[in-house]
């Protein structure tokens, strides 16, 4: 597999196809997150607690996806000169979140289910999570870039603003429902 497919598969996959693959990824990640108590309670946050029902984990993942997609779509509408499609943005962004499956996968291993704070297990899991987060962020950036056809400062500034707004909104939703 070429390395560009790992960081930018969106030259080849977008639209409905990316949405379907992304949805499958979301459901599997959510199921594993529920099984292992891995909360994605923010765009870049992670928490380890087997403390709630499936629907809360699903709401967290769904909120993360919907908010960032909405803000990026809005940015695209305002800043892009191209005719952008909703399905491209929502689909590619959903696809970009697939690497986050790594942390709950690691936590399937009994050694990483319950551990002491600041133990090597914690750092091991956090380490893998950071790798998956960096990977997801690169994918998200490329998804936004290609789906909205934005370049240079417009791309970078709107990307950062969308991330910040999405983080705030997801946190608010989670506070409200818990």
């Amino acid at each position, binding site marked *: 597999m070429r390395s560009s497919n790992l960081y930018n598969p969106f030259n080849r996959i977008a639209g409905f196809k990316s949405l379907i693959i992304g949805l499958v990824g979301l459901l599997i990640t959510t199921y594993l997150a529920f099984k292992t108590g891995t909360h994605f309670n923010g765009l870049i946050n992670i928490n380890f607690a087997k403390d709630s029902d499936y629907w809360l984990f699903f709401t967290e993942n769904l909120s993360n996806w919907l908010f960032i997609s909405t803000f990026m779509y809005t940015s695209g509408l305002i800043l892009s000169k191209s005719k952008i499609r909703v399905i491209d943005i929502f689909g590619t962004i959903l696809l970009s979140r697939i690497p986050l499956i790594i942390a709950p996968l690691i936590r399937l291993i009994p050694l990483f289910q319950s551990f002491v704070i600041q133990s090597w297990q914690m*750092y091991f899991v956090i380490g893998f999570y950071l790798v998956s987060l960096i990977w997801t962020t690169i994918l998200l950036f490329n998804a936004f870039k290609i789906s909205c056809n934005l370049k240079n400062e417009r791309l970078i500034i709107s990307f950062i603003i969308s991330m910040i707004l999405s983080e705030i909104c997801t946190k608010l939703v989670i506070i409200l429902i818990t």
Partner: protein
Amino acid sequence: MKSITLIFGVCILCYLNSCSQDFKKLDDSEVDKNKVKIAQDFASNYLTKLKNGEVYKFQDEAIDAIKNQLTEENQKIVYQELKDKFGDFQSLEYAETWAQSSSKLQIIRFKGTFDKSNKKLEIRVVLNESDKIAGFWIRPWSDMLN
């Protein structure tokens, strides 16, 4: 350079591991069911009494530090804060037991259900060597022991 980085990394890991070596999660076969019962009965009775508007009266099941901290007034204040944030206590279920080797303490963790919160809270009871309550916390549940 690579070997130095590797050795450095291993040293860091050993140091970090040593920070947590003191605690060990007990397997089901290692858990003393009697201790779990003591902890569960205490936590359940304590929270039920406060839920019903009463206060918990300590006998000799806890160490003096706990009794001095959880005076009748403090019990009501703390429970009210808990109730405002998470609602009334409903039930608790046993989760896991950790042992601290250096001090022979046992940390028994329960998952508590409260009626205003969609998340389970941790109800932590710490027992000393003589099975007396040496610690009692209620906090949001985390799979990480801290």
